[in-house]
């Protein structure tokens, strides 16, 4: 074996410093671009979301003039703020021209045929019924699943959907059930659209899950919503 030092091979590979430097430079430039884009669009996005929400709530609670957003937690009802309460349920309180509470709206969602189906439902705390729904987003099959938007018989299900609570206000007395088209017997049942059972069931499940979480937290404290004039 030679005792000479083997000459170091000609280095053709780039040094680690150069690689890290290049990546670092690219990452910094890109980071700046992303943050600029994010900050630049933040206002517009927030505005769009607000407009979309208002439109949906006004549609589902006709006669409403202003909306306030709240979060219902086990500790009570608080106005919705930038920091979300861990297990709070968001909902909207709608007031008419005179400032009186017109109704409450909240979102429910469940998996339908294709993806999530999100519905906004209107709740009347005095009669303890759901008075209407609006579909916020869905990707259901056009011509079949999207009938939940247009079918008038399906919409009729939600004109007085019973969601009254038990006397101790701990749970919804009768869980919402989606039944086969034409077999609706009780006010807490929903007649599915014939041919789109999966999508109809998703609507029912979404509302059921949401009401079971929200109403026991909301109803006992409902008077808090009527206090004070909305801004």
């Amino acid at each position: 074996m030679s005792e000479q030092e083997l000459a170091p091979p000609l280095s053709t590979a780039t040094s680690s410093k150069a690689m890290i430097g290049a990546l670092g430079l690219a990452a910094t430039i890109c980071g700046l671009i992303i943050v600029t884009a994010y900050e630049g669009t933040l206002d517009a996005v927030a505005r769009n979301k607000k407009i979309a929400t208002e439109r949906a709530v006004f549609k589902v609670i006709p006669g409403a003039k202003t909306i306030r957003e709240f979060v219902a937690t086990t500790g009570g009802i608080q106005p919705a703020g930038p920091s979300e309460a861990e297990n709070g349920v968001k909902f909207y309180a709608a007031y008419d021209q005179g400032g009186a509470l017109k109704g409450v709206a909240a979102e429910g969602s469940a998996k339908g045929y294709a993806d999530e189906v999100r519905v906004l439902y209107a709740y009347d705390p005095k009669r303890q019924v759901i008075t209407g729904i609006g579909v916020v987003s869905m990707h259901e099959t056009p011509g079949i699943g999207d009938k939940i938007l247009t079918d008038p018989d399906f919409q009729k299900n939600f004109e007085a959907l019973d969601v009254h609570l038990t006397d101790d206000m701990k749970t919804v007395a009768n869980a919402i059930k989606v039944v086969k088209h034409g077999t609706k017997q009780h006010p807490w049942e929903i007649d599915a659209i014939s041919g789109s059972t999966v999508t109809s069931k998703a609507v029912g499940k979404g509302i059921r899950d949401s009401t079971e979480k929200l109403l026991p937290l909301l109803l006992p404290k409902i008077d808090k919503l009527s206090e004070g004039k909305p801004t």
Partner: protein
Amino acid sequence: MIPGKNPPSNWSEFIEGLWQRNPIFVMVLGMCPTMAVTTSALNSISMGLATTFVLAASCWMVSLLRHFVPKEVRIATYIVIIATFVTVVDYAIQAISLSLYDALGAYIKLIVANCLVLGRAEAHAARNKPMAALYNATGMGLGFTLGLFMIGGVREILGAGKLFGLSLFGPHYQPWVVMVLPPGGFFVMAGWLMLFAVVRARKARGNTPATLAEGAQNA
């Protein structure tokens, strides 16, 4: 570069991606959004334009930095650049129209995984000047948009009886619903490819010596 051949002009860079090397029908790249988002003509064009923006901006930036990026980390760098512009376009669409954003869904962010973008950055932008890269990328992007529109348009017409939301056949049209469902995407694209194959075969047959001679005889 072929010796003696002039470097491609900006115009030919642009045109290349529009038809001759159309990303969808010729190179078969960027299939994920192609199948998923082409349920309507409007969605197709929006997705196409979003991709074009990402493609153009990324290729331009890759080309600008091409001498500074060591070859070992080039893919990682390209990906970071592409992801940046996809994030930008994601927020931009949210700011423009929430309903469009909802319709396109997660596929906007998936532009980052679109083989077309990374492929062009690696194959073209890394070896060419920024302006050439920009023209080529824009051309490819528009070709992609055209391909998306061709598929999306057919799917919307057959599957919903509409184009751009305008009803074409009136309220009594019985929609061919499968066309706007996942299988429809496969079938419509296959349909276009078959059509092109038939046209190409006809053209090739028309140029064979036998038929040419025939044509000369009949002239």
